[in-house]
């Protein structure tokens, strides 16, 4: 059994992430889940697109493909179908996955390609300086929406469910234990596993949206995350759900026919 640390490419440190960024937590949880799988480093490939989130494979001690913006899932599909024996894990961001790469996202879920996709959803294009993304909440400020976004945001996890992924869960960078467990379940589930992680970008999101301190952002995630089971209960009771809440937990676990599953 390896530990998360064994998978880190320590010679690439220090990393490029800003102080207070949640990406390190997500990488840590992912590596912790992977180290529990008993996988070998040389049978595991990380694939990513472009963005701060997509930098992650650069810090991991395995083969990796740092591809073009939005295309990680298409590249990863190629890797997995060429070599089903490899474990394929994709790191992506909300912009990478849902904006420029949205088409690949729905088709990878539809094909249910056997891989695990971890999306660091910081609700912003972090790397390019904080422009509004398809998950920027309505009303939130960004460098392209100075008076608040006027567009509705995507619910990425629901999208993955609708498109056919076998396993879908959402957690946050605050819920490290639950997140690690969800990623582990994703790694074990044949077909496409999608784990959306709400994560803080203090530099380009919090600063412009009345969450000036990192702790404000983490507190926001803690207090606005609503367990799916609880949401269902509140709904059945007819209790109104407070505004700004988002669901966390396991959205789906199923066994649709999948592609690229190792025999």
């Amino acid at each position, binding site marked *: 059994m390896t530990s998360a640390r064994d998978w880190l490419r320590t010679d690439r440190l220090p990393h490029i992430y800003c102080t207070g960024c949640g990406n390190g937590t997500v990488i840590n949880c992912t590596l912790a889940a992977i180290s529990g799988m008993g996988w070998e480093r040389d049978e595991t490939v990380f694939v990513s697109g472009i963005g701060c989130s997509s930098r992650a494979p650069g810090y991991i001690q395995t083969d990796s493909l740092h591809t073009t913006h939005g295309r990680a899932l298409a590249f990863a599909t190629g890797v997995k179908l060429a070599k089903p024996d490899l474990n394929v894990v994709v790191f992506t961001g909300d912009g990478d996955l849902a904006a420029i790469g949205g088409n690949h996202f729905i088709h990878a879920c539809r094909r249910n390609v056997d891989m695990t996709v971890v999306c660091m959803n910081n609700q912003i294009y972090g790397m*390019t300086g904080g422009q509004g993304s398809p998950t920027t909440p309505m009303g939130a400020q960004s*460098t*392209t929406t*100075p*008076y608040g976004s006027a*567009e509705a945001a995507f619910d990425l996890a629901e999208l993955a469910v609708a498109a056919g992924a076998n396993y879908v869960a959402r957690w946050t960078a605050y819920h490290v234990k639950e997140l690690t467990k969800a990623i582990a379940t994703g790694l074990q589930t044949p077909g496409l596993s999608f784990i959306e992680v709400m994560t803080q970008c203090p530099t380009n999101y919090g600063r412009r949206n009345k969450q000036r301190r990192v702790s404000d952002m983490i507190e926001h995630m803690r207090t606005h995350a609503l367990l799916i089971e609880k949401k269902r209960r509140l709904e059945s009771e007819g209790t109104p759900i407070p505004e700004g809440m988002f669901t966390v937990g396991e959205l789906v676990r199923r066994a649709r026919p999948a592609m690229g599953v190792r025999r």
Partner: protein
Amino acid sequence: MLQITEGSHAVAEIAKFCRPQVVAAYPITPQTHIVEALADMVANCELDAEYITVESEFSALSACLGASAAGSRVYSATTSQGLALMFEVCFNVAGMRQPIVMSIVNRSLGAPLSIWNDQQDSISLRDSGWLQFYAEDNQEATDLHMIAYKVAEDHDVLLPAFVCFDGFILSHTYEPVDMPSQEEVDAYLPAFTPYHRLDAKDPISMGMYATPDYYMEFRYELERAMQRSIDVIKRAGAEFAEQFGRDYSALVESYRLDDAEIAFIAMGSICGTVKDAIDEMRDAGKKVGLAKIRTYRPFPTEELTRALAGVSTVAVLDKNISLGSGGAVGTEVKAMLAGSGITVLDYIIALGGRDVRKRDIAAIVDLADKGVGDMFYGLRTEVL
């Protein structure tokens, strides 16, 4: 009014003064400051336009094409990977004769990933039917946007245009820029009058099938429009000189070429360094000059040939490479000067943001003197 401003802000400001009705863009370094500024201007009602926060460059230029076909003046900006993603739409825009103006903040193409400057991105779209202007400094970048709209929208041209300026070197540098007022821009650039547009009362279809019986004629018409644009560019440049005092009536700017033996050919910000190096070499008695290409498409064959008439050697500085052939500009200059007796040497330089200094320019003159060229200049020694 003379102001000290960042290149990106100068370009955003002039884009605003050109009164686009639709702006659609996707952020990408080093273009972001331009589109963020425009988003601000629209939000603050300084610019009466729709700003569309599209989900990719592919959508950006597609939305621009739609808006232009509907009769609007439109603007976008991109670079590198973003422009590469627009490849398909670029050909469509030109083929449908939509006079869109787009700033290209020149950056290299991956892989490996690089955000730094060279001109591979726009050069790679040289065959797409877009006019291509290259700016040496932020003043020129600013001015060329006005000229680009005027030329693109001229009914003798109706071609889209790139205004290219070097990423970071210009886009993120503060320089004095003489920024015209809205009234001055309005006086120079009249409102857009589309030649044809989508109109429910008089329906037309754009982009339909052209069978082998007709397709070639569309390409021929595009090429003819390119050739006609030469005179339109000269005219627009002369009118600009008359109103603003800065002369862009030539497609090629000659610098100390009169009695030159060695002439550089270059495009973009590197020309500033080359000019300074030339001044120093001239002081030392070396007869060198520069032919700066401002308009790369249409290629200024006639002007360039004339400018180079007296020289014995031409050193082309290419911030790009057509892999398997050589520098794109060098290749064209060689074809242009074939049989003239002038030696043309090509230097691939400054790829991926590699810095170029005056001493590099002097070193290239030494190489050219010895007839050594057609090479990458400034490589790390471990690959040699």
